[in-house]
């Protein structure tokens, strides 16, 4: 049985490395956060949140992200409570033991679209729509990958059988179970930005980068200070070291 496990593993290794080769490398796009000291473009991320809420949220969860953390994108508590109120979840049992629905609030985590794993699968032709909280971190070159994937839907080449899925040149194996989710007219942006496919995708990717790495800006800002300090300290220690050793030579 263990030999079987290893065999399956090795076969899948070979198989997948072939099929993975068929996927195109993601196109490189200069996001606001791409450079080492770049920041998350808050306006773009807010629009991305709108795209997520109005389009993606019907199938994909964001369960590691709490509504309260949206403060990091520049929302205040009232705005966050209004965003949260668009989602309903099961309340704790009341005094009679009944479980009623209530609106989500500030302290809740993004409500998942399905009651459970099997319900999610059943509603989507047997393919589980993955949680998006960590999507950008969970893929190689994640931001560019998600962007390329969402822009990468085309007709399958002649003779290519996609089965029940859809053709996407950036997907490993080129077949993806998710139909093209964004077309360009999916949202009417609250800030008046004109919606287009690329605009929506870039905004969404910016938002999902933030959900994957809410620490990103703090981390980079703190990192700059720490590295600067350590750099100076290294020099000072070096001078100290030279001084002490010069005494030895005399």
């Amino acid at each position, binding site marked *: 049985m263990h030999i079987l496990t290893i065999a399956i593993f090795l076969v899948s*290794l070979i198989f997948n490395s072939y099929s993975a080769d068929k996927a195109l490398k993601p196109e490189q796009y200069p996001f606001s956060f791409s450079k080492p000291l770049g920041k998350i473009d808050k306006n773009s991320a807010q629009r991305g949140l709108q795209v997520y809420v109005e389009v993606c949220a019907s199938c994909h969860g964001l369960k590691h992200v709490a509504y309260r953390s949206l403060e990091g994108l520049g929302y205040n508590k009232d705005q966050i409570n209004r965003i949260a109120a668009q989602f309903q979840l099961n309340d704790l049992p009341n005094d009679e033991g009944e479980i009623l629905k209530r609106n989500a609030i500030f302290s809740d985590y993004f409500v998942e679209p399905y009651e459970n794993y099997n319900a999610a699968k059943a509603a989507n032709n047997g393919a589980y729509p993955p949680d998006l909280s960590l999507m950008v971190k969970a893929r190689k070159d994640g931001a560019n990958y998600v962007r390329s994937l969402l822009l990468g839907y085309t007709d399958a080449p002649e003779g290519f059988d996609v089965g029940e899925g859809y053709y996407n040149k950036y997907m490993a194996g080129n077949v993806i179970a998710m139909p093209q989710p964004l077309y360009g007219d999916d949202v009417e942006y609250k800030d008046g930005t004109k919606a287009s496919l690329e605009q929506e995708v870039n905004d969404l990717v910016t938002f999902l980068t933030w959900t994957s790495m809410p620490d990103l800006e703090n981390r980079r800002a703190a990192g700059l200070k720490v590295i600067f300090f350590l750099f100076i300290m290294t020099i000072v220690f070096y001078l100290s*070291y030279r001084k002490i050793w010069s005494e030895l030579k005399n």
Partner: protein
Amino acid sequence: MSNLKKNERGILNWIDYRLPVISFLKHSAVDYPTPRNLNYWWNFGSLAGFFLLVQIITGVILSMHYTAHVDHAFNSIEHIMRNVNHGWLIRYIHMNGASFFFIVVYIHIFRGLYYGSYKAPRELLWWLGIIILLLMMATAFMGYVLPWGQMSFWGATVITNLFSAIPLIGDNITQWLWGGYSVDNPTLSRFYTLHFLLPFLIVGVVILHIVALHTHGSNNPLGIDKKGPQDSIPFHPFYTIKDLFGLSFALTIFFAVVFFAPDFLGHPDNYIPADPLKTPAHIVPEWYFLPFYAILRAIPDKLGGVIAMFSAIFVLFLLPWLDTSKVRSATFRPIYKILFWIFLLDTIILGWVGSKPAEGIYIIISRIATSYYFVHFLILLPLLGKFEKSRPLPESIGKPVLAE
């Protein structure tokens, strides 16, 4: 002991007269006579100790927030990353600290190989070092399982399955390791316990390592013994400040990674929760296991592969006797010097093929590199000691240094 007299006043003397901790520290970290010619490669021992300490401190903190249960492990890591104050920093330090610990220890080992630090009378010192490496590997492997991502789960599955290669009782041993019929909650739970415990065992072996070191003193780039007091200098302040400088330099690099590329050394798949029904496309262990992983896969036989992989480490235990040359430092061994660099290259090649799928040309490369790995230890080194003509050794450590 000598200059702390029992009739002197002061709290420190009072304590030291009753519990000689201060004399001990003075003896082993202040006055400790150290060869005066140590180069920067000798910084990596204390650096390794530092990273062990970092791992223990951050690890104890993470354990306050982590939950070792298959239903909660992944979420509790995200809780640490998102909710705990500075949690992301502490976890990134722990994650990358493991990698840096290995980098530092590998450099420390290769320094030992180059300068013959394993030769008499330091064989047991060397052995203790290998034991530390083995404990580190076990600790790191089990630590990688704890986030319960896809790589955690499948890495654990593949590595624990190695033990099923043992004839007759292999299957029983894997079941015993798992506490079930596959990697599951009992496995996670015991790995967590052991991951917490082993570092303290490492500390114990490190103490023995230092005791053995201080018995005959540090080796040095010339590989010759100290002839007298002119050859050595007190550890403090000369090597304390040098170690501090090295530490500060290393920390700059370390924190550059922690703050600007914290996931560079990890694998994206480990941010996908473990799914026992779906194996990721490429399973690769953490980079520090790759050379051994390559050796495992180079052998077409399951049991043979496992034996080869473990032999790759166990052969190091025999090294003090396999290397028959009386000269320690490669500086005076022209042929060994070349073989050392070829061997280093060989391990890097093994690491590289370990990250590639086991197919086509990669299998051939991994087989050649694996063969060379063992040829180096089992054939080249024993023969070399017999035929190599080493360059004349200097008279003393002090002489070439003072001649500068």
